[in-house]
């Protein structure tokens, strides 16, 4: 009798647990799992070149052909470059600004506010500001660089991607600054005092005490930054639309063009699945590799 009663109570508890999880699971199912499954499914069908024709089932071959195609590899290269331009520089700048703003100086709060202010700026606003600054006719930057009237920076194939990266960097710096400031302030003063008495000059102190204790935050900022850069869309759309000559055609913008400009849902689906897998592998890899080099302060 008693084991039976126990079992039925366990069942009821489990059932109740699933019931509580159900709403969240529902939301995930509708907005994440279903689209993901649908994308994988769509990738098995080739979209015909003309509208109103039925899609053709081609199986996994579309995955093979798209993922080895030159446009995909070009767009992947652009994306990787964009990540390299934005993420490490963003973290270094964030740490540098946070270290500066962590000084005990009169009026330092003004700087803290200024440094973190870009977090309140939307991608659209940031893009419009830089679009104006970089405009070849009226832009202040073009004027300063003596390029007034010539080819604009955003129209220059070599400079367009770095320019878009700078806008992204500028917009993200507020968030990174706040993260790094919080992390810096959580380092106990006594540790830095001890290092000062132990004879460490400021750079040695920063390198051997501050930086290792910031490593969990640097790791977090790295993961979030890479994912964010892989998904950066607004600034590309507003500043270059993937141009000039596809030089800023990052993966996410390639997907957008495939799906909504060319209505090639099959191609877009394959690219989306590829982006998902790349991010999944990158994130798992980061956790696996970096976590053993990051100090979390609870290694007992």
């Amino acid at each position: 009798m008693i084991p039976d009663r126990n079992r039925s109570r366990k069942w009821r508890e489990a059932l109740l647990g699933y019931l509580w999880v159900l709403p969240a699971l529902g939301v995930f199912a509708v907005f994440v799992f279903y689209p993901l499954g649908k994308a994988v499914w769509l990738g098995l069908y080739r979209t015909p070149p003309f509208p109103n024709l039925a899609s053709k089932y081609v199986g996994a071959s579309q995955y093979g052909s798209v993922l080895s195609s030159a446009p995909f590899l070009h767009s992947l290269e652009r994306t990787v470059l964009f990540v390299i331009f934005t993420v490490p520089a963003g973290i270094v700048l964030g740490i540098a600004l946070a270290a500066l703003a962590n000084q005990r100086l009169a009026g330092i709060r003004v700087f803290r506010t200024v440094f973190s202010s870009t977090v309140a700026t939307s991608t659209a606003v940031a893009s419009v500001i830089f679009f104006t600054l970089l405009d070849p006719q009226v832009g202040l930057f073009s004027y300063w660089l003596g390029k007034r009237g010539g080819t604009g920076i955003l129209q220059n194939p070599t400079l367009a991607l770095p320019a878009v990266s700078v806008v992204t960097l500028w917009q993200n710096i507020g968030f990174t600054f706040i993260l790094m400031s919080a992390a810096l302030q959580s380092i106990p003063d006594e540790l830095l005092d001890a290092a000062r008495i132990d004879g460490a000059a400021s750079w040695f102190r920063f390198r051997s005490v501050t930086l290792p204790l910031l490593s969990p935050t640097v790791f977090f900022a790295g993961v979030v930054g890479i994912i964010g850069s892989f998904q950066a869309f607004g600034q590309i759309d507003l500043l270059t639309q993937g141009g000039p000559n596809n030089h800023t055609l990052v993966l996410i913008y390639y997907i957008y063009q495939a799906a909504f400009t060319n209505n090639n849902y099959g191609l877009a689906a394959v690219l989306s699945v590829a982006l998902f897998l790349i991010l999944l592998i990158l994130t798992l890899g980061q956790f696996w590799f970096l976590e053993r080099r990051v100090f979390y302060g609870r290694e007992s």
Partner: protein
Amino acid sequence: MAGVAREFPDLTGEAGEVMTDQGKISAVALDRVSKRYGDVEAVCDLTLQAEPGELLVLLGPSGCGKSTVLRLIAGLESPSEGTVRIGTQVVNDVDPKDRDVAMVFQSYALYPHLSVRRNIEFPLRSRHFPSNERGELVLRVAKSLQIEHLLDRKPAQLSGGQRQRVALARAVVRRPAVFLLDEPLSNLDAQLRIEMRAELVEMHARLRTTSIYVTHDQTEAITMGHRIAVMHDGRLQQVGTPRAVYEQPANAFVAGFVGNPPMNILPAHITSGTANSGGAAGVVSANFLGGEIALGAEHSVALRGFSSDEVLAGVRAEHLSPDPEGTIHATVSLVEELGDYQQLACRLGTGQLVTARARSGAGTFATGDAIALAVVGEVHLFDPVTSQRIGS
């Protein structure tokens, strides 16, 4: 200093510094030092000197400014006024790393991401000692503190006592001229604290490095210090040997703070023996704790210049004992059995609580007993207005 590449000018005999086979030992002197944070005065007009090789204890309740004094000496704070001198040098504007001091923090401040070995090595590394010398020094200090088996662990894997030893090792590895210890034992359990106390004293005897030790624990101060400097509200109250501070407290605060249990300090009324109160000169009596007591003849001289008959009188517990002929009547409210004596918390008729001691042979007492107490030792008198000691 065998094996340590440190070069000192020969300062033997120069004021404030002594050369030993262990290296340089410096005096530390604070001259009229004040430290203000906005309107708050953490340290006020402090003049204090630690002699070369001395273990000076800064004692006081939390918030009395003793840790600030240590930080001023270390160079982590700069004084608002006055000068700080280490050895012969005024160090007001000298960076902490150039002061040749080492500090042990209450929280130990071990670098959590570094192994024990790297923690101990840190002061050597930052001063660019060659690596073979570093290894040798770390091993030697680790052996002397019995932590050589922990060298490859991280601080999080150590017990409180082990962390304490690592912090000490990090401080002594470089043989600084001055040690600063900020409540280093207060995070340890009672048993370990007693053991570490002895070890610290032994270590000091071996190294003979000038040490300034901050604590709020008066037992620690009395047992460890060559001299004790008692602080309160940012001001120095008294400095002297543990015995002098215990036996002749400079004011009512010191009397109440130093000693366990604290001295019983209560108002008393001088009834005879002074110019004001009449009676035979030389015999001072006072109404104290509800009974009439005779004070020593020395108080007659001291009280001569004192205008009021109202004083604060202090009696240590060991000088207040049950005595059938005593004049102070009380009820026992708590009995502590402490081996060869009983410590009694007694409630007076006036509602005040005093602590008395009953030696073995004086009978045993239980809670609720009505007893009579007599003063069997020295009575300390303090000015009720200034709290300062009356007389020597």
